[in-house]
């Protein structure tokens, strides 16, 4: 039995659908990033020092703090872009292979 553990098979049609799904997810993440930035610009905790400290903590959950939502979302965007590139490579490979097959078949002599 052959070892296929390091081989990944992906139908070109499925790759195309996954590629499109990445577009949708990318747009959703971009919209979420805008919302996180919006949250980072809201200060609605008054002038009490305790209120401002609380506001800073919440604000940094969105933007600027360790593991802030904004940074997490940005890393997700990069992951989606990487996945999409991989799916595009699958599609390109399938198209190249198809083109190669066409050339090969055309070069085969027709039987008399």
């Amino acid at each position: 039995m052959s070892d296929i553990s390091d081989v990944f098979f992906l139908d070109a049609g499925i790759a195309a659908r996954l590629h499109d799904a990445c577009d949708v997810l990318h747009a959703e993440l971009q919209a979420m990033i805008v919302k996180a930035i919006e949250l980072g610009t809201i200060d609605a905790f008054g002038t009490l020092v305790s209120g401002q400290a609380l506001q800073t903590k919440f604000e940094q959950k969105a933007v600027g703090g360790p593991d802030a939502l904004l940074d997490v979302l940005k890393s997700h965007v990069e992951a989606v872009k990487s996945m999409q590139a991989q799916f595009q490579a699958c599609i390109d490979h399938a198209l190249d292979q198809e083109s190669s097959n066409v050339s090969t078949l055309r070069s085969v002599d027709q039987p008399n």
Partner: protein
Amino acid sequence: MRGSAVGVRGAVVLVAAALLVGGCSSTVEGHAVRPDGADGLFDPCSAIPDEVISGLGADVASEETGILGVRQGEFEICTWMSDWYQLGVWSTFHTLDDVRRNPNDTDIRDAPAVGAGAITFRERRDVDGNLCMVAIPVQQGAIFVRIDALFGETHKEELCELATRQAAVLRPHLPN
């Protein structure tokens, strides 16, 4: 927006003040504010005609109130998506003085094309340079027209120029 510009208030402050005052006899610095959040503010979602928004190149169907639908204290917020940015109109009690006082606000410039007293400004925390706002002084406080470019997208126009241009178109539909 700039609640930051703000020094704002809200029910949270009142609750905090009540707890502090009620829990001990020490003096509490600061001031509490309106408990009723955004009541009485100009509401951009209901007041700005759809055709004006679509004329600016934004998608009317993408209209959203608040942030992800959640109303924010002391602000009436309405946003619409365009192809590479989000257009936002934030209505608030806060003033342009609040913007000028806010250490997070930077690159403050006059925007006479929008109207007397209007300014553009940016945020120090906006490390990607994806945000520019126009602040317009009005009787209630201010109206902010905000452009948030989408992360990773090429800016087809300089953000503050775009914000200024769109604010000028919106101005007739905003309060005095």
